[in-house]
């Protein structure tokens, strides 16, 4: 994380707390205390220009919340997101942020929900162009939309159709075209292929990689699928209950996982390369995030747990947040 150019995206100690208390009257009558859910609890990472940084984790680990805070859809409770030197949440940077907005786009999981069903595809894709007044003149906009459709493997004439006339994979292509319409450089992809069939998923993943090569895009890639992440990411962060437990260069996470949770996850994923091999199923399930375990939140499921884990939350040191690894109780990989 040291060498190389300055990172495009810097996330520092990001936190997000949701108030999940019962309504006021219930709290008074039932004497229920206020309840808070720490969806994201102190996450820091950098994303370099042109790389794909992936966040993986099971449901409830807070990866989508991080994504939404990074693009500015959700204000953080604490911490900062800085993109190309501009703070995403500092009021003083409002003007610069407005200019930055154009360069950041998002692709969502469900291509059925993320496209306006009443708009024609041409209008959907042209929306960022018009919003940022990037191109003047209808003819020029139409031409640009046609180019974008070709770029994602659709036909320029498709712009006159409605989203319902397309399959899931084609819709995700439209969503990608829309993201590229404003010449975005940084694209946050929240589970872009989890709603798609495998053969279509392969098409979309290949397309995303091709576009990255051609346009020099930077991706923040959110997924629960480790195999997809391995295929796409240059660096990977593993999340568990709102915290980053391990950050690693792509390949080494899979060849030499260090955090016990990463190991458990890798052992648990069914994989086509595993025909006939026996596996170790991990124990337990993700605890309720409203009342997470003390200390290291993974300790009730951890095979390497010792006293310190129950008391202190481990900091991320050298890319891994685990007392056992830091104390040298696990052979460093």
């Amino acid at each position, binding site marked *: 994380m040291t060498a190389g150019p300055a990172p495009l995206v810097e996330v520092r100690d990001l936190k997000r707390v949701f108030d999940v208390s019962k309504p006021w009257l219930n709290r008074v009558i039932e004497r229920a205390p206020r309840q808070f859910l720490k969806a994201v609890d102190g996450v820091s990472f950098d994303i370099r220009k042109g790389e794909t940084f992936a966040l993986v984790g099971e449901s409830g680990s807070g990866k989508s919340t991080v994504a939404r805070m990074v693009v500015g859809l959700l204000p953080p409770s604490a911490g900062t997101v800085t993109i190309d030197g501009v703070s995403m949440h500092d009021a003083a940077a409002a003007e610069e942020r407005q200019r930055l907005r154009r360069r950041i786009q998002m692709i969502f999981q469900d291509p059925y929900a993320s496209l306006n069903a009443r708009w024609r595809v041409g209008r959907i894709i042209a929306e960022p162009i018009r919003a940022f007044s990037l191109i003047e003149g209808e003819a020029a906009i139409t031409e640009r939309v046609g180019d974008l459709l070709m770029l994602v493997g659709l036909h320029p004439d498709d712009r006159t159709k409605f989203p319902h006339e397309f399959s899931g994979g084609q819709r995700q292509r439209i969503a990608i075209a829309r993201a590229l319409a404003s010449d975005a450089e940084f694209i946050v992809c929240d589970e872009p292929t989890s709603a798609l069939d*495998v053969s279509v998923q*392969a098409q979309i993943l290949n397309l995303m990689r091709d576009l990255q090569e051609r346009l020099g895009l930077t991706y923040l890639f959110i997924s629960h699928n480790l195999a997809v992440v391995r295929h796409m990411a240059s660096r990977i962060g593993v999340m568990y209950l709102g915290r980053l437990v391990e950050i690693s260069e792509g390949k080494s996470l899979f060849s030499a996982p260090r955090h016990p949770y990463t190991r458990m996850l890798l052992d648990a994923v069914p*994989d086509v390369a595993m*025909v006939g091999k026996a596996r170790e199923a991990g124990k337990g*399930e*993700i605890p309720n995030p409203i009342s997470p375990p003390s200390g290291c939140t993974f300790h009730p499921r951890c095979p390497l747990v010792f006293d310190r884990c129950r008391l202190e939350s481990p900091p991320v040191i050298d890319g891994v947040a685990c007392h056992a690894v830091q104390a040298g109780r696990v052979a460093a990989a």
Partner: protein
Amino acid sequence: MPSEDTAPILSVRDLTVEFVTRRGTLRALDRISFDVARGEVLGVVGESGAGKSVTGSAIIGLIDPPGRIAGGEVRLAGERIDNLPPEAMRKVRGKRIGMIFQDPLTSLNPLYRISEQLIETIRVHTDLDAGQARARAIALLDEVGIPAPEKRIDSYPHEFSGGMRQRVVIALALCAEPEFIIADEPTTALDVSVQAQIIALIKTLCRERGTAVMLVTHDMGVIAETADRVAVMYAGRVAEIGPVRDVVKQPLHPYAKGLMGAIPSLEGETSRLVQIPGSMPRLSAIPQGCAFNPRCAQAFDRCRTERPEPIAVGSRQVACHLYDTQAGSEVAA
């Protein structure tokens, strides 16, 4: 492992399911045939719309109008069950064929304690009295790995986590000691670490009880690890069926090849994924001849006119003209 020289527990021959709609008759299953041996796990894979779930529903006679079984037969331990009257079929369902569905929350009644649901099911299918049935329900919950079953049995479904609920559903499926279980996407709604536990459980239970399982899923990883044999479905037809090792490692059918190559793996290279152009045809527009021909790189004239029948290649059956050695001659089905 398939047990030696016994008749298959389930035998499906030329099963055809049609849905009559205003715009014409849609053929969801088109003359599919396969056997499941006693104690065997048969995986059924395919993308959305391939007919995987319809196959399961047709076997247990749960095709709702306007769908109907238009031809073929289903035999359970040699007896035909596809033409049984509803009353008789109800006795087969649950008693001789167990079912596990994708979403554990919808297969359990939220208004009844799980004890009531388990005991009711046990008493319907066996002649145990209430006390014995309860003891048996507790034993079953213990067997599927629910901690402190004598306490947990009186809980409601919402008091269980997703993984635990799926365990309850498995216990429910095992109540009457069925000879055959249909598991339709049993792990799709679960997180990966829990998924591995459920797969391991299904596998162990089947090995111990000698129950055959038809495991329907779109996740090749799950199949690769669990199944003995696998059937790859495409557009309502079986493209390839054979031992899981062969089909996953060296698929023969061009669609199966594409499908396996499209899946990102946790091992090996992370170069481009194999990409099948296009997507699965709609039921209303299944191409003439081989349903896969418009997407197939190796298609030739015959593929466009004549539907390929399953051809035995070694230990498997492949429905593809490429493997027809006596080109031009009719191949017996």
